């Protein structure tokens, strides 16, 4: 297993992609080790905002040692990050979490489903999976600010759903699956809880596996504080209760294993 470490990273480039959505490439040794679906903890430089912000890995350039995060400004920490320019030093911790099981996609028809700020991890994942039979990428947005859609088109058939109907299917990613008459043997998903619940139900009805990436408020990010747990169907092997740590045992779970 890769070694987690806290280190100084350097901002390579930052661009705004949509209202409140920023795209930052950083230079870090974590880039080489990170798997699709893992995340990093990013620290603020504001001593009154101490806890690290967990942000998913969007893409890596292993040769150049660069890692890309695409995040939404949600509070003081992410607002601070959004102002960083090239050359800025930031503290990061990672790689954290388990990541998606890539080997499960072999020879299968795959859905990659991303909703809102759950879209970024789908990029590194769709890029990494090359032995699937088909790759349908379903993206849910609020409106026509389609961040990362162009990047994802390189790695599969992109289908878009927007809440306001401005692009693609009006509604959710579930509506887009139906409207396009798509089918899959396995699903990888990240997005808001209502979307993940719908994916879990969809997968259950069709008896196919769905791997979903969860989010929760975290403190340590390394499995010590027990802040970020999810209810599990079975007793968890580590906690010995029906709780698993999202930061360590997750963030990716087989949907049927978790009570969401």
């Amino acid at each position: 297993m890769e070694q987690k470490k806290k280190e100084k990273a350097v901002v390579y480039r930052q661009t705004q992609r949509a209202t409140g959505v920023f795209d930052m490439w950083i230079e870090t040794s974590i880039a080489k080790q990170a798997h699709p679906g893992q995340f990093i903890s990013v620290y603020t430089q504001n001593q009154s905002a101490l806890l690290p912000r967990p942000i998913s890995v969007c893409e890596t350039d292993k040769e150049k040692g660069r890692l890309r995060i695409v995040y939404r400004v949600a509070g003081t920490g992410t607002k601070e990050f959004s102002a960083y320019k090239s050359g800025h030093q930031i503290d990061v911790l990672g790689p954290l979490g388990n990541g998606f099981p890539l080997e499960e996609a072999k020879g299968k028809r795959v859905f990659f489903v991303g909703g809102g700020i759950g879209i970024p991890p789908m990029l590194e994942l769709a890029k990494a999976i090359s032995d699937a039979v088909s790759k349908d990428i379903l993206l849910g947005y609020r409106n026509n600010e389609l961040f990362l859609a162009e990047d994802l088109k390189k790695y599969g058939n992109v289908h878009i759903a927007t809440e306001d109907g401005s692009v693609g299917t009006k509604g959710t990613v579930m509506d887009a699956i139906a409207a396009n008459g798509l089918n899959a043997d396995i699903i990888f998903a990240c997005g808001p809880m209502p979307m993940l619940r719908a994916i879990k139900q969809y997968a259950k009805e069709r008896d196919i596996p769905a791997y979903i990436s969860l989010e929760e408020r975290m403190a340590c990010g390394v499995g010590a504080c027990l802040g970020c747990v999810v209810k599990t169907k079975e007793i968890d092997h580590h906690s010995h209760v029906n709780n698993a740590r999202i930061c360590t045992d997750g963030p990716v779970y087989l949907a049927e294993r978790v009570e969401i």
Partner: protein
Amino acid sequence: MINTKVNIAGVELKNPVMTASGTFGSGMEYAEFVDLNKLGAVVTKGVANVPWEGNPTPRVCETYGGMLNAIGLQNPGIDVFIRRDIPFLKQFDTKIIVNVCGRSAADYVEVVEKLSDQPVDLLEINVSCPNVKHGGIAFGQDPKCLSEITKEIKAKAKQPIIMKLSPNVTDITEMAKAAEEAGSDAVSLINTLTGMKIDIHKRTFVLANKTGGLSGPAIKPVAVRMVYQVANAVKIPIIGMGGIANAEDAVEFLLAGATGVAVGAMNFVNPYATVEVVDGIAEYMKTYGIEDLTEIIGSVK
């Protein structure tokens, strides 16, 4: 040659630096970042007689200069703990302090008895968790109750006991005196301060438990003041904690009267914090020509 050794209830620690219960698991997660052999002691997450599920999420949130938590003492129960966590910690040259929690006197006693033949150096008794109904807080906010539970546990414990005190009281020295009179071998303070955060956009509590325990640098001045007060009220050793981020913070607690110091929430911010405090204390001693660390304990009167 400097001497950083301290003695707590007959147990000699190579240095005064330990981990605050609940912020370090049983050391497994942080062993990836720090050499546990360098720590004076590892204080484990609270363990009860049976597994506890803890509270619903969200269980943690950030606050100005600190954080709130309401984990609810999730733990795997003493049997798993003895099978898994103690053997893990035994691999390291550090003292083992097990934090014990319970909902009743019988719960505490059951855990303490199961630990009696274990290679554990000290027991820290959590009678002050603010996040669990009947999670001991009732024992920790009334001197009579604290005295009774201390006596019951002391009667059964094979290792020296440390009563962990709550700051959510009018006068913490009364609690410390009650613990000392009832036979506690040491006290640790402070546990978290009860707090609350409201999400003004959702118009609801941020934590599912509504209230949580405040920790981090925001509470340090309160903790230093309480350690100082308790040091002037009792003779038993004190383990001081509350917002320690670096060696300077730790030295403040030592000067105020703490024999041991624990790093808590700041482990989450800086996973190397514990070892940096160990190294920083040695630097401080060299800078000021202090040969024996015990010279400075409680030296600010």
